[in-house]
């Protein structure tokens, strides 16, 4: 598989919670009732009423803010798709948590050796893929090649305008992600985070960062020039002053 993705079809979800249990089991978290993303919860189900259940999990952005924010690339976009985390590199600045527009990364606040925690698409399971997709009894969560899943999502949405709100969440959000949601209502009504910026968020900081070499080069030339100019001026003034002094003497 070139590039793994996940498709969540909210219309097929019956709210059984198998994905949550599978996630907890395969990530070696104690079984617990999950209500929000935290250090032991990489996914949970939101009950949106009228038998609508929506999962939350890491969106695995194509150009992840968290990875661009990380000063040491402890978070990085893997070739296979998932956004992964290497705790041995991490210094714990938590800029990734702030940078994520979906509010995904969480922290081990009560550990002396804390790690950032989030879904890594079960990369430790290798070719078996994410446990949540494997255990889903209705096919509400499926995994496969990202581009194929996106095409499938669009086909379903366009094919049944009555059942689906005409939007694939994740196709454009934050410049595109590897996890897609389709469902009966608009993303805000489904309880998914509102991300209005279309382009990749890392571009926003890069717009500022790209000027760094210019500041160094032109700043250096300008300041060096000012130093040289005013020093010369000062020397001339001093020489004149000395001359006058000699004349008087």
């Amino acid at each position: 598989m070139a590039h793994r993705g996940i498709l969540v079809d909210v219309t097929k979800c019956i709210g059984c919670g198998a994905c949550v249990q599978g996630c907890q089991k395969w990530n070696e978290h104690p079984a617990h009732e999950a209500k929000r993303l935290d250090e032991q919860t990489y996914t949970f189900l939101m009950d949106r009423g009228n038998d609508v259940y929506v999962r939350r999990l890491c969106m695995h952005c194509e150009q992840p803010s968290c990875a661009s924010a990380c000063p040491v690339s402890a978070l990085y976009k893997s070739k296979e798709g998932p956004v992964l985390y290497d705790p041995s590199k991490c210094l714990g600045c938590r800029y990734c948590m702030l940078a994520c527009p979906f509010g995904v990364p969480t922290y081990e606040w009560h550990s002396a050796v804390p790690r950032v925690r989030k879904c890594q698409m079960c990369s430790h399971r290798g070719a078996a893929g994410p446990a949540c997709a494997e255990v889903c009894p209705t096919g509400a969560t499926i995994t496969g090649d990202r581009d194929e899943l996106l095409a499938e999502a669009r086909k379903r949405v366009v094919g049944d305008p009555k059942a689906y709100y005409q939007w694939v969440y994740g196709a454009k959000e934050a410049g595109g992600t590897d996890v897609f949601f389709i469902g009966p209502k608009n993303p805000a009504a489904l309880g998914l985070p509102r991300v209005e910026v279309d382009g990749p968020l890392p571009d926003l900081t890069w717009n500022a960062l790209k000027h760094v070499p210019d500041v160094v080069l032109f700043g250096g030339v300008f300041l060096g020039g000012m130093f040289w100019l005013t020093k010369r001026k000062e020397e001339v003034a001093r020489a004149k002053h000395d001359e006058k002094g000699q004349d008087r003497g």
Partner: protein
Amino acid sequence: MTKRDRIVGKDRLDSLRLGFWTVFSGLLIALLAVIAYVRYTQGLGAVTHLSDTFPWGLWIGFDLLCGVGLAAGGFAVTATVHILHLKDFKPIVRPTVLTAFLGYILVITALLLDLGRPWNIWHPIIMWNPHSVMFEVGWCVMLYTTVLSLEFAPVVLERFKLDWMLKLLKPVTPILVIMGVILSTLHQSSLGSLFLILPEKMHPLWYTPILPVLFFVSALAAGIAMTVVESWFSRRVFGKPIETHLLSRLSKVSVIILALYLTLRLRDLAVRGALSTIWPLTRVSLMFLAEIGIGVAVPMVLLAFDRFRQSPKRLAFAQGLVVLGFIFHRLNVSITSVEAATGHRYVPSFLEFLVSAGLVAVGMWVFVLACRYLPVFPEEPAATEGATESRGTSQASLPVSKPVTAFDRT
């Protein structure tokens, strides 16, 4: 005569004050050590109110963002003296560089507490991600702290009469100063760039693509303001006479910088159509109005009056407002605006406040000690020793009129 009496009395007071400060700071350091122990053994959650939705709190908003900004006087004044060759300002270079150096040391101390895995703090040296603003920030902290320590080194070397090392440092001073200005420009602005990646998580009164520019300009204003406030503080503590006309000239520059900042800020808000979010008045918009009104507009107007700038006390008051407004801005960017946009509240824990206040107190204490035992005010060596020795014996060594002559000499 009365002036002299007052200063003798002040001198006596000083010894008391230092005693109080020594005890107070000692206690604070002990408390900080206890808090640090709990934090390092039980995690950040044990001492802070940080959460997954509020991963950055007071230590980043105040200690880091403000600590770095208030150190900006260092590069502004060194550049004025060593690059523009305006030698009049020489007497305030050393105390300003000391403030900047201490500021950065405190920032690093705060970072060692705030980072989850501080033992990895050196990782950006070998693990590069040039696309990360935090990577730039990390490098700026490392490099500029090095530059500042070299800029401050002559003071220590003079004290221990290591002339050969002084000779080595002298020719590279202009290069150090230029590096200092460039690194500071990058560092101040990059702290603003950090927040560029949060368009969804910040209130429009504070989120703007020009954050890096705003951070740089406001840091310049705050740096100069700190220089004035700290000169006034030195006078209160050591009876160091202030070069009032120098501070007055500096404050004139402040007016221009504040005007530039205000124009940038309001123009940007107007262009983005964010001004309308001020009404109806809420806690958030009141924070904005306080920041802009008390912290920028009021001191700008006050300092514009020649007569107002004649008194060191008034100068210190107005520049104190600038410092306050600056702190307001940084806390509003990092906390208020995030609260407003995400709907989550963050109120720092008592221990977070204690650490922040403690670090400031320790910084002031070290500043006082450094001024006392090192030639920070090089033009008048009598005062450095005089402060401790003069009480009983010498009226002659009292630093009353000397600096005026010292200034005239240059």
